[in-house]
């Protein structure tokens, strides 16, 4: 028995060593997917350029924020530049999820929240407890294309339109050489292989935005309500954009959706969308910006929630887009964080701040809407 106890001790020690070794190894590789050239190249040049654009009016102390992981890479760049310019201020954005961000905002624990979708009426009602004199409003700050990535040996470029896409994700089209796909891709040699559509397993703003697009443009083929939860019964699921991208990368015959940066960093081919414009549109920050430009503001008062036009047929406008909002109180923000929130958001909405987005694979908010965002930020109280 004694001998065994010794053995077990030794085994535990070895185990501990293995675990700590694994931790050290994972710590190096754990962080996200930003293609390294975008981060390093982008920030080093803009850090110096942006410093002059940032005004740190009265900003002090620590600003906590939380929410959407879709805008994480953009916020990281902003925070880095902002903290370099304003010494003594610490901005801490916890990238969790839109739902978490809104919960934290409505509990009053964060200065602002990031969210992939505008506040729901009941969430606005909740926010009135925290914003004593006002209510929570949405400020569109980051745009981005949702890329449709695919993996098909021997095929590098693929064009699809909304009804075909809807049928693929609803597992109505089961083979890659289906007539509907072949018709959109003349001259492409499509293999007789099963299509394996991947979607997000957890609730996600990306899912909801894809759903809105499909519901708006292919109502006959996509009968589901656009929700954060994946509605269709078929297909396979994976966790997070990273999970879906990894599956698409791994499985021959797969198709899935995720933010463009995941496709570019893992060199996954993306689908060009036939919107009805003269040429199919590729997913890129520019084409996404062009589509967001067609959006109308649907929020009332100071709320700037956007109504995206998914059916746009404008040349070079990529219609599957996502807009991330920063959620703040219009009036009644907490006195201790208000100056910092104002000064930080003023920077993110500034020309320098928006310019940074393209470098990180996102799409800037069009000038007309952005002007209103700036106006609203300057009036926050």
């Amino acid at each position, binding site marked *: 028995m004694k001998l065994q106890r010794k053995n077990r001790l030794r085994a535990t020690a070895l185990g501990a060593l*293995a*675990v700590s070794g*694994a931790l050290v190894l994972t710590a190096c590789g754990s962080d996200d997917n930003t293609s390294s050239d975008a981060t390093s190249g982008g920030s080093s040049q803009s850090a110096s350029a942006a410093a002059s654009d940032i005004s740190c009016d009265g900003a002090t102390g620590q600003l906590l924020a939380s929410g959407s992981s879709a805008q994480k890479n953009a916020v990281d760049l902003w925070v880095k530049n902002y903290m370099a310019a304003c010494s003594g201020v610490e901005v801490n954005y916890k990238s969790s*999820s839109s739902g978490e961000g809104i919960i934290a905002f409505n509990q009053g624990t964060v200065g602002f929240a990031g969210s992939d979708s505008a506040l729901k009426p009941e969430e606005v009602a909740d926010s009135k407890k925290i914003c004593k004199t006002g209510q929570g409003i949405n400020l569109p700050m980051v745009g981005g294309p949702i890329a449709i990535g695919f993996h098909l040996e021997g095929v590098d470029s693929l064009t699809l339109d909304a009804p075909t896409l809807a049928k693929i994700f609803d597992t109505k089209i089961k083979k890659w050489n289906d007539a509907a796909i072949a018709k959109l891709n003349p001259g492409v040699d499509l293999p007789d292989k099963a299509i*394996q559509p991947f979607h997000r397993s957890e609730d996600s703003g990306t899912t909801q935005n894809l759903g809105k697009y499909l519901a708006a443009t292919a109502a006959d083929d996509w009968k589901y309500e656009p929700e954060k939860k994946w509605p269709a*019964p078929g297909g*396979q699921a994976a*966790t997070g954009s990273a999970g879906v991208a990894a599956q698409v990368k791994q499985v021959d015959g797969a198709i899935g959706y995720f933010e463009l940066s995941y496709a570019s960093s893992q060199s996954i081919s993306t689908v060009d969308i036939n919107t009805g414009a003269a040429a199919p549109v590729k997913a890129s920050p520019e084409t996404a910006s062009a589509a967001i430009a067609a959006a109308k503001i649907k929020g009332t008062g100071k709320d700037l929630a956007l109504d995206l036009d998914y059916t746009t047929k404008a040349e070079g406008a990529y219609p599957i887009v996502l807009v991330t909002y920063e959620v703040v109180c219009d009036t009644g923000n907490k006195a201790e964080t208000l100056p910092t929130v104002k000064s930080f958001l003023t920077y993110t909405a500034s020309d320098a701040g928006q310019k940074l987005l393209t470098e990180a694979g996102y799409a800037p908010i069009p000038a007309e809407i952005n002007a209103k965002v700036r106006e609203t930020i300057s009036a926050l109280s």
Partner: protein
Amino acid sequence: MASTTPIDIPPAPPARQSRPATSGGRAGDKIFLGLSRGSGILLLVIMASIAVFLTYRAVLAVSKDEGNFLTTFDWNPAGDPPVFGIAVLLFGTVVSSIVAMVIAVPVAVGIALFISHYAPRKLAAPLSYAVDLLAAVPSIVYGIWGALVLVPHLEGLNLWLDQFFGWTYLFEKTEVGVARSLFTVGILLAIMILPIVTSVSREVFLQVPRMNEEAALALGATRWEVIRLSVLPFGRSGVISASMLGLGRALGETMAVATVLSPSFLISFHLLNPGGGTFAQNIAAKFDESTQFGRDALIASGLVLFVLTLLVNGAARLIIARRKEYSGANA
């Protein structure tokens, strides 16, 4: 060992009666008694308040559920009206655990027997380290390994099972897709519970009284007959409790399942099709984006898992109690 505790208790009372006589009213004893009693009560109070809190939140959620909490094949507490049910989760949890047990227990008993009775000493020690090391690997590492290595490599096995055992219904593959199924989860869970089942079984097998084995050998039994006649009956209750410890881990495993499974809210006995879900995996997957109400609903599902675990442990206790005579404590 879990199995020995209930059996150890009966001899205690006489000892307790004699104690006050010898150790009178020494201050140290009183303080120690107070401290230990206090911490015991504190633990119960903490547990009780956690239980009350969780039950309260769960009741809040279930009372607003528009579907049937037990039979609905959907999880959409954010919907209008909110609809969610645990049927799929219960099914997935039970099925993946059964697959894991069916694979892991025979293998673990085999390894334990090999280490304790067949292997030369030089091999037995490193082998038991190796098995114990498996227990030290964090589950997320198993998850990543499962997703990147196990899943792609299981495609061949799946096709083979489908071709030759498709007639069993269980192994008929009716949907395309890689092996992100409950069956794969079961295999992964089997690997994860292997160390605990092996090491407890090994300890039990090593405690078979030397005399029993030697007596059997003296009667002319072969090595296998010794194992069959003296080691296995003696170790049975230990192996059962080891399996239950393993089952406990399999039922509650979260990250590895979440990484490997392609969750969906459908029940299918075609084990090779992607889909299904487990309680723990569902909680991990849905918690982030949930509203307060959604979290209450997840807590409710967690309570069901708790009840399930309680039932399994109760059943294990019953089995062990019936086989008391073979338990190591009485030898």
